[in-house]
């Protein structure tokens, strides 16, 4: 197990580096550079040339990448070309917001998916099953921003601001700035709608997947054996069947993290949340290369680490799985 873990941890390094290299090259292939936005009204071609020299943007792309990498090794994530703010500082300020959003949306997704899938699987071809699968199908089909706008219309417009439409309030003890709104209830109020908007689509996917896994598992021999031994339906379903059926679901959950990060960009923009999603999209739009690299680095790292954790979860779900 230790060897496996070490090997996987070592795999993280080339994977993340490859992703950052691809992003680095791609960003510089996109038309436009940040110098235009930086100089704004004062733009002249002569000044643009000088500024590009200052930021090393006149060097070949691979040389720029090596320079960026060299600084990264020393813990320097660089600074925003536009605002001059250290990238790492901005990433760390925004990370908790997105982390909380993603965790809660995944929790909401599971809270919807598990009961819906169980009902669908255990009462296959009944109205309950049809309802669960239909709702899942609708959930898959509706994009996050549309659910978000509907929630805004109902809970912010309709119910006289019952839930705040924008902004962020931090959990007590987590404020990373000088000025923050801090309150547990305020935090719940602010994260609820974005998390639902983000979680519903994931719930739909997981419901469909878990239902089909459950259908397969409850027809397997060991479940029949458990029933034949006289076990009641509850432990048969929850302990024997569900645990095994969850393995493909957990795999997909890990992969869904990528979609959640993508969805967070949309949802954070809609709800004006100061998270990594808005940080990433603003950086891409402004061609702020250093910030884009920071965003790519943190999301790539999060993605591979979460998928490693997912793989490790298999051993808990199915003791027969061993890593060597």
């Amino acid at each position: 197990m230790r060897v496996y873990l070490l090997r996987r941890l070592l795999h993280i390094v080339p994977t993340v580096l490859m992703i950052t290299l691809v992003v680095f090259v791609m960003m510089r292939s996109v038309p436009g550079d940040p110098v235009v936005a930086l100089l704004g009204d004062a733009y002249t071609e002569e000044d643009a040339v000088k500024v590009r020299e200052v930021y090393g943007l006149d060097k070949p792309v691979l040389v720029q990448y090596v320079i960026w990498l060299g600084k990264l090794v020393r813990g320097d994530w660089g600074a925003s070309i536009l605002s001059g703010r250290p990238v790492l500082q901005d990433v760390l300020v925004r990370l908790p917001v997105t982390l909380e959003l993603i965790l809660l949306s995944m929790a909401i997704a599971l809270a919807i998916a598990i009961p819906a899938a169980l009902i669908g699987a255990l009462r296959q071809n009944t109205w309950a099953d049809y309802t669960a699968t239909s709702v899942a199908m609708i959930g898959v089909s509706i994009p996050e921003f549309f659910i978000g706008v509907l929630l805004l219309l109902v809970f912010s417009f309709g119910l006289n601001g019952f839930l705040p439409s924008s902004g962020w309030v931090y959990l007590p003890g987590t404020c990373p700035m000088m000025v923050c709104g801090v309150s547990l209830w305020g935090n719940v109020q602010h994260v609820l709608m974005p998390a639902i908007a983000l979680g519903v689509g994931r719930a739909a996917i997981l419901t469909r997947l878990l239902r089909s896994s459950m259908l397969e598992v409850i027809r397997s021999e060991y479940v029949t054996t458990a029933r034949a031994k006289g076990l009641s339906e509850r432990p048969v379903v929850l302990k024997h069947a569900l645990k095994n059926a969850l393995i493909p679901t957990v795999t997909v959950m890990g992969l869904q993290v990528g979609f959640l990060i993508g969805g967070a960009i949309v949802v954070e923009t809609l709800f004006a949340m100061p998270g990594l999603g808005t940080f990433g999209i603003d950086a891409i739009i402004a061609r702020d290369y250093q910030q884009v690299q920071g965003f790519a680095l943190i999301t790539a790292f999060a993605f591979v680490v979460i998928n490693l954790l997912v793989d490790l979860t298999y051993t808990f779900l199915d003791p027969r799985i061993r890593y060597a």
Partner: protein
Amino acid sequence: MRLPARSSALATLLTFAWVLVAPADAQAPKRGGTLRVSYGNEIAHLDFHTAPGYEMMWVAMNIGCGLVNITPDGRFVGDAAESWQVAPDGLLYTFKLKKSVLFHDGTAVDAASVKFSIDRLMDPNTKSGMRSFYESIHSVEVLDPLTVQIRLKHPYAFMLHMLAAYRTGLVLYSPTATQKFSLEDRKQGKPGAVVGCGPFKLVEWVKGSHLVMDRFDKYFVAGQPYLDRVMIRVIKDPVAEMAAFKAGEIDFIASFSPEHVDNLKVQAPKAQIMTGKETTPMLAAMKVTVPADGKPMSKERKPHPIFGDLKVRKAVGCYGIDRKEIVKIAFKGQATPWVGMNPPGTLDTVDVNHLCPYDPAKAKAMLAEAGYGPSKPLTFDIIADNEKSVFNVIATVIKEQMARLGATANIRVVDKVSWMNTTLQDGPWDMYVEDLLSLITLDSNGYLSNSSSTWSHPRHNDKRTDELYARYARELDPAKRKAIAKEIQEFFVENMYWNNISGSPFYMVAQPWMKGYTYNAEFEVHYHTVWLDK
């Protein structure tokens, strides 16, 4: 019960007195509270002399102070300047500063700091977008600690307009703080690095989250500002912005999307919706020249293959575009169709719409004269950047109007940075739809439309435009200046160097409890007189 005559008279007097006093009391500014402001775009950075964007400017106007400000009716009022004198030949401006004006770092605002700030703006190394407006200044001299003199190379009729409201206007910098902190510190908004002499001092800027300014207790206007704090958040989505406003989460939207105004009136009927005559031109620019040697920004130019021909420019831009229809569809009628480059709300504006009546038959005939017709159909591209949805709508209507002429316009939607790169760097484009800059004077549009500026995207090389602008800016007689302004506006229409569509409406929205704000479009956004009636 009947009151004795004396008591009755006293009661009447007291009632009368209450009637007189009570409304005055109700309008007396209340001190304290936090004004929660929403901006639709991110603040670029906090070096006010170089940062682009209105969002930065609206912060600069509150953290910084300058020499003069301008009122909505065009009067100049002193900011740090107590008084000023202009020599009869217009070559010497003498400013007397108010005593006891302090920067937030405790140092005095004196003549030396004014000289320091103007010199900094004029220094090419500063790379300020304001530099071109200071071109007329010969030197700045300190006469005594409270008197500063600006000597000009030639008369500049818009000197005070420029100092008050071109972009941020002049923002005074503390020499001490500027020398103590680096440019990077100031851009990031590091504590202590952003020092102004305005009513609010910077507390914190966290990009993507908020900017917080607190009352500067030593502000030179006694008793002001009334607010304890101004908290600015960025809400980019207009629907979310409207929801936050309706829920009372924000007090003031500094720039509200015009297409959502009607909806807001329904959602928040008590909201104060502020607007005025348009000062921003909405244009469908056409490229006039391209590099002859293929090198972007080359001085060797040749006519653009399509719009290099004046006949085509006039056929498309002048007679082929139905501006009324565009305004009806894109702005729901809430803008003014306007051919002139100087929008209806800008100083010295002239209605020149009669020069370009919508006449598709004439447009078709002109295109035929230029060689376009069924055998050689006119085809061109329109770039619309996605910063505002209205650009795309206008481009779509133009496309439809071109189809009526037998021409094909292909729309290319790009992001703002791509648009800036293409237009600023002399890239390949035929026409674009944009609103560029809010204009307080026609003079301030010079650097977007003369023959040499990088920002003059059509890249016409007609030196006559420079001569007209120079004559306009140097003319000190307002009546003569107005005549030159008319000449400029007609000249640009006749040559279609600036294909204006309409004014671009601007809206600010405030909660009913926000009091004391004076609307002055994008030019002056000050919170020091604002108070909250909660």
